[in-house]
């Protein structure tokens, strides 16, 4: 629904983060979003914009503390048995109702499979706009509007998007794009409890069971301080052995380009880039990776980038802090040997 300027100015405040819980813990992306939400709220000229985290699940009690430490001013908690599994329809009904009730100005969520399923449902239910997979969020000083930046056309274009006459302004953001703030254990905030209405539980969709990938297959690309990535230059599935060996010697995780995944050399869960994961390790070592834009958007904010490539003109070599011109089959085992000592 289109709103007038006064309707917007009079009613809509607060920056909301839709919190996500995995294995009983607050998802990292939620903490990162609280970090950016703090910045956005502080930039609002009105001065009374709060950071609010909406946390839903069947066992979420007690998790609010962490959210306060990480800069939430208020937590709205919905704990209910019906939220045990991810039923998009129940979640969306509750989120839409609460947004209508509290009227936040901005609502952001992780661009996880849940966030990307839930947010577009909610946006249409409450008749507002939504921008997917933002890589930048800022407040326009003049208009006070949210500036949402995102790549399009496989990362060949970066677009800035506004939502002028509808509220809230909504975006999803990938993990690793923003940084969480330092936890401040002295911070606390306001806790509000809400529930799920009986009619919201009646849906034509039911989740019967859930299966979690075991610990060992969980590749913690997001948690790794060091990522060693193999590109088409590794030539074969066997070629990945030296990549794994280097990763092991530095206690890092293994990343991959889409080209290697499409060739079936390694599984999709390793993919870094536009259609894979966005990562931000301390050190990113790209071996036999050319550095096409779709790959770069997923790793360019790593703190320190090392590229090993035969071709000194490969695009990754310009982006790198250290560019090693050479054959990865010679260089990588040398580095592994030195690091293992």
């Amino acid at each position, binding site marked *: 629904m289109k709103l007038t300027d006064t309707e917007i100015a009079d009613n809509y405040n607060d920056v909301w983060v839709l919190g996500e819980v995995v294995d009983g813990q607050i998802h990292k992306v939620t903490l990162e979003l609280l970090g950016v939400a703090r910045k956005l709220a502080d930039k609002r000229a009105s001065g009374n914009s709060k950071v609010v985290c909406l946390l839903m699940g069947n066992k979420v009690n007690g998790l609010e503390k962490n959210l306060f430490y990480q800069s939430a001013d208020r937590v709205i908690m919905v704990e209910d048995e019906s939220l045990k599994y991810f039923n998009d329809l129940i979640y969306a009904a509750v989120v839409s109702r609460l947004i209508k009730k509290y009227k936040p100005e901005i609502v952001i969520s992780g661009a996880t499979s849940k966030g990307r399923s839930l947010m577009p*449902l909610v946006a249409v239910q409450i008749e507002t706009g939504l921008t*997917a997979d933002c890589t930048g969020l800022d407040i326009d000083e003049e208009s006070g509007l949210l500036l949402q930046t995102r790549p399009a056309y496989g990362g060949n274009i970066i677009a800035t998007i506004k939502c002028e006459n509808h509220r809230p302004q909504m975006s999803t953001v990938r993990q690793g794009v923003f940084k969480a703030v330092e936890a401040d254990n002295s911070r606390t905030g306001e806790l509000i409890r809400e529930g799920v209405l009986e009619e919201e539980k009646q849906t034509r969709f039911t989740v019967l069971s859930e299966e979690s990938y075991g610990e060992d297959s969980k590749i913690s690309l997001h948690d790794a301080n060091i990522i060693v990535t193999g590109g088409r230059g590794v030539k074969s599935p066997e070629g990945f052995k030296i990549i794994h060996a280097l990763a092991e010697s530095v206690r890092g995780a293994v990343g991959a380009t889409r080209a290697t995944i499409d060739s079936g050399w390694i599984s999709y869960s390793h993919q870094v880039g536009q259609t894979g994961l966005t990562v931000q390790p301390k*050190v990113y070592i790209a071996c036999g990776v050319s550095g096409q834009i779709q790959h770069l958007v997923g790793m360019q904010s790593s703190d320190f980038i090392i590229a090993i490539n035969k071709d000194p003109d490969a695009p990754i070599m310009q982006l790198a802090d250290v560019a090693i011109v050479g054959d990865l089959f010679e260089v990588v085992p040398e580095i592994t040997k030195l690091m293992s000592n």
Partner: protein
Amino acid sequence: MKIVVCVKQVPATTEVSIDPETKRLIREGVSIEMNPFDTYALEQGILLREKHGGEVIVLSMGPARAELTIRESIACGADRGVLLNGRPLGGSDTYATSYILSQGIKKIGDVDLVICGKQAVDGDTAQVGPGMAAHLGWPQVTYVSRFVESGPLELKLERMHENGSDISLVKLPAVLTVLKDVNIPRIPTLKGRLNSRKVDITIWDEKDLETDPEKIGLGGSPTRVVSTRKPDARDKHTIVLNGSASNSARELVQILKSRIEL
């Protein structure tokens, strides 16, 4: 089963760039194709029809040339196609697009199932499927990786998420978005190709669809692109090591160790 498969015609994303002067997308000379993710949606529609009978209707919103993509779908085995085309529909964001497509589904009538691709490679938003579900008021099942059981009234599906998967049951009518994992799309047969040239494609504009003029096109879109630019090439000083493998490795390890405590 009356199945609608939503397919989008997209530019080959690797060829797209911006005109540095006008800041507009250069579309000339860029080849176009069916959104790769939609080929799995189409195949799934055909598989379900083969099992349960009924028909597969391909639905696309886009310029007149999107008719080619619809014909390609018919060559693969879809029964017929509907193109939503009209000047006022242009410039729609995902909110408006999902509204317009949902109006098309209502006009087709008695639809049991809508199948979409996971996302379109031009925008990568994955918002149109859920948007349609919301406009229609139907349940949605996103990121479907497997059809466990299918009946005419109900589907048992596997969904994928980052940390695992789940099994769910959905009552029809519903909207699904499917992953590559669901099937291996077939290629068109010669007979299919010949047939696809002959069939009439239904074309509806905003009036046929009885759309609310406030909800379509640029004017009906809550979001607006205010600027576009080329991706940043991070401008920085690169240390280049181009000696022997062992020298480069040694220098690198020194740099690395000075940077982090391993």
